[in-house]
């Protein structure tokens, strides 16, 4: 027995010997290691597949995009990144010319000749965008440019031959890209800030193929050191181009940013930290524990901790015990939460019989009335979420602060009356499936939803949970129209409300992003008109009209924008962001020198 134990101990020691070495230090100085908590794990880190928020966060730190958003300016403003300047747009708005910086190199990697990273050329950008249209890539960003760039879709149907030139996507020379759109696309420059548009090298793709995810070869401020299911470690890219930080360029506002210490960064070249560690902690409790134990620099505070962290709601005030320790910021989410009715479902959506169609409409409107946004906000968002009618959230300029909010006000009496008037009672109400991917919170949200409905007289047994083990399975189910009530959240891809409007565009019906399969010719017409317009009062008007159409048809119970609460310790200098800026802010993160060495 003793012998065995010894062997086991030996084995364990051996295994430990094989574990990773302590992090490298930067030329004698103690390494600056910033630890960032994420509430989910990224999937693939191949830019063409970086679909999750978490993956995008990391991808933009490993790769370069032509454009990015300004660090501090709000509302968000696009800023050249790898591009020299903003695109030169032709008269008709269809042709864009973009010049890219010289002397930007990929990181050193065996895929290159001699293992030395080569310079990035315009053709790399062209290649990177084309990749999305190559079925072999299993890319997920193609929708951004689908039917937008001249010849690109054709290129795909003709077999995705990279040697074949696409008319609308050309490298004029080594440093100039020319893009021709098939119709005006005012949001185009936004698409170039996406992780999807990150520039990859053809050599790396050729060598690593599917494994590119684990061998990122980019030119971003960081390079990947290691990555597993609970953390990713990124180290400073020492060859990153020197671009001194300029406060005014980034939209510095002393009133907002001085207390965060950002002015100290003036003139220094990012990235400022030696090592960037992402910890993927899905459980709120564990994440909060790790943060309060000092293992993390930053956390998005779980809602269950709001009570603890905040002492009052308006104005939002940190509890005294945290006030001295942490910086905090409440940031409205660029997106919203809503519950769609499946309009393709004759029990609740469109019905060929006019009368029944009308009754279904009444049922939907009654359910909208029965829904209690105030309570939802109180329970799940600590009453600091922003409830708004429709799909134009307060975070966008098109939001109408004076609009009628009755759509999101609970009217139980109205709901009951509406049901009664249309001949609905406990027996005639249809049994509806409410789908959600399994999680504690999703289940609680469902139970609350069901409670709202039972308050209006809907029998509990007639709202059936349909639980899916994976999000993908849930997605498949509602994409195939198998779920009557679809609870979703939408995170905007770029700061333009067009991104929300397409959610109900008829041709985008399931399996597209129009999961409600809403199909209103009026709405579709308005969408088409607005889609080619730049931001203008007219466009705003059209958007508001569309919003009203949605509410009239009671297509969706919507919506709320969450307010995210960020905490970070005082040794960290940064202004975190989870929406459009996303992972770009990482390069500007700095740690106060004194504290940098006292990592746990």
């Amino acid at each position, binding site marked *: *027995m003793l012998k065995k*134990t010894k062997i*086991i101990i030996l*084995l*364990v*020691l051996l*295994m*430990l010997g*094989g*574990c*990773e*070495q*302590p992090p490298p230090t930067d030329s004698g100085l103690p390494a600056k290691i910033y630890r960032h908590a994420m509430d989910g*794990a990224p*999937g*693939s*880190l*191949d830019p063409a597949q970086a*679909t999750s928020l978490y993956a995008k966060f990391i991808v933009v730190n490993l790769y370069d995009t032509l454009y990015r958003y300004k660090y501090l300016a709000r509302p968000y403003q696009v800023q050249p990144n790898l591009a020299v300047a903003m695109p030169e747009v032709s008269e008709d708005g269809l042709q864009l010319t973009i010049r890219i910086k010289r002397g930007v190199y990929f990181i050193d990697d065996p895929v290159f000749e001699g293992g030395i990273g080569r310079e990035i050329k315009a053709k790399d950008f062209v290649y990177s965008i084309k990749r999305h249209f190559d*079925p*072999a890539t*299993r*890319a*997920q*960003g*193609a*929708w*951004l440019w*689908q039917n937008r760039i001249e010849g690109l879709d054709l290129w795909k149907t003709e077999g995705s031959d990279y040697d074949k030139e696409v008319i609308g996507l050309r490298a004029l020379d080594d440093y100039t890209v020319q893009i021709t759109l098939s119709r005006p696309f005012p949001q185009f420059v936004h698409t170039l800030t996406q992780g999807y548009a990150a520039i990859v090298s053809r050599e790396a793709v050729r060598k690593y193929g*599917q*494994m*590119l*995810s*684990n061998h990122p070869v980019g030119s971003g401020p960081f390079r990947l050191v290691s*990555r*597993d*299911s*609970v*953390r990713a470690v990124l180290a400073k890219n020492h060859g990153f181009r020197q671009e001194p930080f300029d406060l005014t360029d980034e939209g510095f506002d002393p009133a907002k940013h001085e207390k965060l210490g950002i002015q100290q960064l003036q003139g220094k070249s990012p990235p400022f930290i030696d090592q960037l560690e992402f*910890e*993927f*902690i899905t*459980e709120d409790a*564990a994440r909060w*524990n*790790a943060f309060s*134990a000092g*293992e993390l620099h930053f956390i998005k505070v779980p809602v269950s901790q709001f009570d603890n962290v905040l002492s009052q709601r308006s104005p939002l005030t940190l509890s005294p015990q945290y006030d001295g320790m942490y910086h905090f910021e409440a940031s409205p989410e660029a997106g919203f939460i809503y519950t769609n009715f499946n309009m393709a479902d004759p029990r609740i959506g469109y019905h060929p019989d006019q009368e029944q169609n009308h009754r279904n409409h009444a049922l939907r409107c009654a359910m909208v009335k029965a829904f209690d946004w105030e309570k939802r906000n109180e329970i799940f968002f600590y009453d600091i979420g922003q409830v708004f009618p429709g799909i134009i959230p307060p975070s966008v300029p098109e939001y109408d602060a004076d609009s009628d909010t009755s759509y999101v006000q609970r009217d139980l009496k109205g709901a009951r009356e509406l049901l009664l008037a249309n001949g609905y009672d406990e027996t005639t109400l249809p049994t509806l499936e409410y789908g959600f991917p399994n999680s504690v919170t999703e289940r609680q949200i469902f139970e609350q939803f069901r409670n709202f409905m039972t308050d209006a007289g809907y029998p509990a047994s007639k709202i059936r949970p349909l639980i899916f*083990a*994976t999000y*993908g*399975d849930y*997605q*498949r189910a509602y*994409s195939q129209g198998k779920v009557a009530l679809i609870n979703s959240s939408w995170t905007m891809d770029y700061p333009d409300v067009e991104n929300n409007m*397409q959610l109900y565009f008829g041709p985008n019906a399931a*399996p*597209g*992003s129009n999961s409600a399969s809403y199909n209103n010719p009026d709405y579709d017409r308005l969408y088409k008109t607005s889609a080619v317009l730049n931001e203008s009062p007219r466009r705003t008007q059209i958007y508001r009209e569309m919003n009203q159409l949605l509410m009239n048809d009671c297509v969706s119970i919507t919506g709320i924008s969450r307010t995210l609460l960020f905490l970070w310790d005082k040794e960290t200098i940064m202004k975190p962001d989870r929406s459009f800026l996303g992972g770009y802010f990482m390069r500007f993160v700095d740690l106060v020198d004194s504290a940098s060495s006292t990592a*746990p």
Partner: protein
Amino acid sequence: MSVPYITSRLLYGIPLMLGVTFISFLLMVHFGPDKTYELIGKNPTEEQINEVRQSLGYDQPFLLRYGNYVKELLTLDLGLSDSSGEPVSSILIKTLPISLALVLPGFVLGNLLGMALGLLAAWYRGKWLDKLVMSASVVGMSVSFLVIIISLQILLCTPYGLNLFPVRGWQVHGLGSYFYYVTVPTLALVLVTLGYNTRFYRAIMADEIERDHIRTLRAYGAGPAELLFKHVLKNSLIPVLTRIMFSVPFVVVSGSLLLESYFGIPGIGLVTFNAITSGDQPILKAVVGLTGVLFVLALTINDMLYSVVDPRVSKS
């Protein structure tokens, strides 16, 4: 024990392996999660959906896919993870040692302690010490793993309690940090298995102590140490070995699942759990295949150990 014997035992494992792979393939792959909708972008066309299905191999006929799976297992070419694109084999190589390092101390400690307590209780059968140990083990058996983990975390890892150990993570680069990270999971594992182990070992030891040959030994003046540590232990080795051998594959995969997902330790359990919730079939397939192989191996080694331990089993 000879080479043909070992070979025959391993051959016996073939139908078992086929069964394991077939059933798990049927359940986890054929009826299993579908990653198509996670891998397509927004507003996909029917064509794009088919492209993804094709690239995932979902469009192939069942038997062909199963055949490929078996081939993959045989050639140890396990493909790439659907989610991260990392080769499954390198994921396994990375995670397996971590799981072992995480679970082994608790497993060994739980069994050794259980054995010691079981022996003690069996020796003092019917006395207060026995009753005490047995009552404690009933209490131990009645506490859910989950409750233990949550309680230990509060008690040892948070400011609400002693705040001595990390809440989560696994940044091991030495013995010190190893103990730092492994203590709480080990404690949880020991606590949750100790009750069962103690009872198991006590039952076996008590049976052995009542054997006629033990009475013979006592009649010939053998002392308690000789009785227990020589004769009782050696005679009870078969059930003990069986239990240990058979739990190894599961301890490594299943047992660590909860621990790893709660303590955020990047072991094979967590990888598997993530594969379940994200529908990463290549990983699922590999893990199931791997456990099947481990199980068959355990079965074979177990049989061979039998003949070493017990002369009655040896092929004479």
